[in-house]
């Protein structure tokens, strides 16, 4: 999984662009805050759908949506194409959702021993990610990893558990970077295929 680098669009200082320019096919100079807000208003439904893949709590979904809006308004100034802006907003939504889950992970580590078990973890309000990642599912993921070929398993373990980048993994394993990417792609795909059978499409 990525510690998904936050996208930071390159480019010079933005200049104000009318909202109507977004509908045009030719490239625009840049998006100002007003245009960014208009874009977010159009994309809200799609963005919330992305957030719900990660978070099952409605209150947390609203919080993450607000975070997406803040990040988008702050950084959309360098986007020079509307289609690129939509893809960028998607990435922001994905990053914000994962950041939320990682914050919950840290909270769970601190307070988990004191909290009672609940049947419907998604409604507990304790951790939005718990509705998706139950203990049983986490155990299934670990078993699926153990069932991978050693080369793929080690590459994924180094990438996800130790946080090494592709170059570091290549050095550690004594292979080139392309081989690392191939092992990671195959390993991730194999994991998802094994787990989709277990969770019936609702990971």
């Amino acid at each position: 999984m990525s510690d998904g680098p936050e996208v930071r669009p390159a480019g010079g200082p933005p200049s104000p662009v009318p909202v109507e320019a977004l509908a045009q096919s030719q490239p625009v100079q840049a998006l100002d805050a007003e245009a960014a807000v208009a874009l977010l208003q159009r994309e809200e439904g799609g963005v919330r759908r992305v957030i719900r893949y990660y978070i099952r709590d409605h209150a947390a979904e609203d919080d993450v949506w607000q975070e997406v809006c803040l990040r988008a308004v702050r950084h959309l100034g360098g986007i020079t194409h509307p289609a690129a802006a939509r893809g960028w907003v998607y990435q922001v939504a994905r990053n914000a959702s994962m950041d939320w889950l990682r914050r919950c992970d840290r909270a769970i580590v601190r307070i988990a021993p004191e909290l009672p078990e609940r049947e419907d973890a998604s409604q507990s309000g304790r951790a939005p990610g718990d509705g998706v990642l139950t203990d049983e599912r986490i155990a299934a993921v670990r078993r699926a990893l153990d069932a991978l070929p050693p080369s793929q398993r080690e590459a994924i373990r180094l990438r996800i558990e130790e946080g090494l980048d592709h170059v570091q993994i290549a050095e550690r394993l004594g292979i080139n970077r392309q081989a690392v990417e191939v092992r990671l792609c195959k390993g991730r795909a194999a994991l998802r295929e094994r787990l989709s059978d277990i969770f019936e499409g609702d990971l």
Partner: protein
Amino acid sequence: MTAMTCPEAEPLLPLVADGAVDPSTDPDLFAHLAACPSCQRIVADHDLIALALRRSAPPAPPRARIITFPRLAAAALVLIAIGVAAIALAAPATAPAAHGLAVHPAEHAPAPAPVAVAPAAPARAPVAAAIPEAAAPTVLRLARTDGSTVFLIRRGDAWVAIDPTQMDGSSTRGQSSANEVPVRW
């Protein structure tokens, strides 16, 4: 930008999850992702699998601190340097100190004052003692060879010997009797 289809995008989705591509490096892929719920779901699955692996990862063993020889040698040199400096500062030095200033013994410790004891009286057994001024108490009780006792009381830089048997009773507090004899140490 060209529109991408799902069969074209799906092999690249693990790279999206891995962070190997982003909207700046592959705008077509992310434009497709922004509009395709199916591919969004696949990326989310990859992300959640990674999160589950992090949650279930065994804790890393604590790293033992290994002090290598260069560190030991450096630490030893530091200690030696501190010890040498301490010795140099403690001993009186006539040579210039490390900071370039001459150190004069008199500035650090006064020379011990010479001590001498004058006999209290010829008829009495001499009372002699050599007590360094720095260590001298306020009152000393000394026994004579004839068994009598004399007291030495410190008054400033001098000691006064008082023979109780010679006290005439006229002494009041703070005033010496006729038999007080200044004693210089």
